[in-house]
């Protein structure tokens, strides 16, 4: 059973560009950017990009950065584009060293569970480069068997069908305009108000905030119909739309 304990996973993580850790205005500029969409950034894991940073050569410097990010409700998990001294210091501060952005993209392409559409590469914005401005993810192509699409921190809209063996996941609502033949998971981070809207229900699995129904448990009356799935009193409820 021990073989099941560790397995691979893919996550979209925001990158904070740290140019000068001692810059007195750094925190206020960061706070300003976060203030524009506070819930999006709340307790989000971040990686510090040190490409243009020559300082930060001690564990203490990283502890300081971590405390500063924490004050902004961001959780530092590692560094990117760090030099050898910085990597050692980061390790001593319990931060992981991530591969440079271009190397990371190559690994992502080799990942079996990669989403069908190449996701936008994180862009270096003034301070924070996020996975995107809009929190809603729109997929226009069919989601093929064996692929997984995750809308982190927002809704997922699929304009086509989701094939058997495919998985569509959102922290918010999941909207599927075509047929759902694979799995749909809404409220993946625990939002019990999240819903799943389906053009044609033929699902393998429905899940809202951890409560799920497998296809066997779905009433035959709803199969092939246009439905919405909600969580009512801790019970998954399907309604015709």
């Amino acid at each position, binding site marked *: 059973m021990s073989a099941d304990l560790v397995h691979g996973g893919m996550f979209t993580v925001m990158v904070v560009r740290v140019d000068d850790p001692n810059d007195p205005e750094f925190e206020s500029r960061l706070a300003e950017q976060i203030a524009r969409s506070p819930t999006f950034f709340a307790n989000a894991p971040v990686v510090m990009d040190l490409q243009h940073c020559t300082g930060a050569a001690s564990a203490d410097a990283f502890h300081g950065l971590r405390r500063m990010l924490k004050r902004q409700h961001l959780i530092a998990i590692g560094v990117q584009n760090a030099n050898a001294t910085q990597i050692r210091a980061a390790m001593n501060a319990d931060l992981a060293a991530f591969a440079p952005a271009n190397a990371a993209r190559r690994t992502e*392409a080799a990942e079996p569970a*990669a*989403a*069908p*559409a*190449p996701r936008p590469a994180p862009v270096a914005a003034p301070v924070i480069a996020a996975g995107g401005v809009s929190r809603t993810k729109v997929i226009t*192509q*069919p989601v*093929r*068997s*064996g*692929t997984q699409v995750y809308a982190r921190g927002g809704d997922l809209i699929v304009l*086509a*069908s989701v*094939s*058997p*063996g*495919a998985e569509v996941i959102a922290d918010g609502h999941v909207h599927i305009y075509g*047929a759902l*033949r694979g799995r749909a998971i809404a409220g993946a981070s625990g939002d019990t108000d999240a819903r799943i809207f389906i053009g044609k229900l033929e699902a393998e699995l429905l899940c809202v905030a951890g409560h799920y129904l497998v296809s066997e448990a779905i009433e035959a009356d709803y199969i092939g119909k246009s439905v919405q799935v909600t969580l009512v009193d801790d019970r998954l409820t399907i309604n015709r739309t």
Partner: protein
Amino acid sequence: MSKVITITSGKGGVGKTTTSAAFATGLAQRGNKTVVIDFDVGLRNLDLIMGVERRVVFDFINVINGDANLNQALIKDKRVDNLYIFPTSQTRDKDALSKEGVERVINELRDNFDYIICDSPAGIEHGALTALYHADAAIIVTNPEVSSVRDSDRILGMLASKSRRAEENEAPVDEYLLLTRYSPERVERGEMLSIEDVQEILSVPLIGVIPESEAVLKASNTGMPVILDTESTAGIAYGDAVARFLGEQREMRFLKTQKKSLLRTLFGKA
């Protein structure tokens, strides 16, 4: 512009090699300089289907490793002008397909041919991924049954994420669906998925429907691409599929049982 067409399916035994042989022959018959490559390293079959197994000296892997050049390995078809067969090795395995080596060979072929047909091995591992990596177009060979359809769906996902075009953010690979071993009688009896069922799941344009036909087995056994058997329904259907691939409008044939039309059956059921 030279075009790489990968014939793929995910599932085995659905007719990839038969289709590769037929398509390559059909394209060459229409005056396109065409080469068909066997990517199924270790399970060499294309040379048998093309009837050139006794003329193989050097193979794909020899050329990848630089032990032979293209001209030494390519076998010119004796029946159809413009058609060349590029056999693979029976003694090696798929790991011999190095990314750089395959890329070099494909690029060299692009300079010399109008169409490069890649006959993919089954599965979704290294061999199949290498065969689809360079695709400009892909023909997804599917039998009208659920496991074949699901595997085709998986391969379509791979084309959209693992091909060179996907990696380099170019226009996506052109995808076409080819239904093989189609039997109107069995569809009517509910033993097989209908064309509509398959298309609804895969949502890829249909380029042809090849009826179940004894001519396919006979052609394989005699080493003659079935498209050259213009008496057979399968041969004619492949001819239509090639014409559609080249942009011609042709009606689908052989979709009906003798007595009752398929459409009536379908509408009768619905």
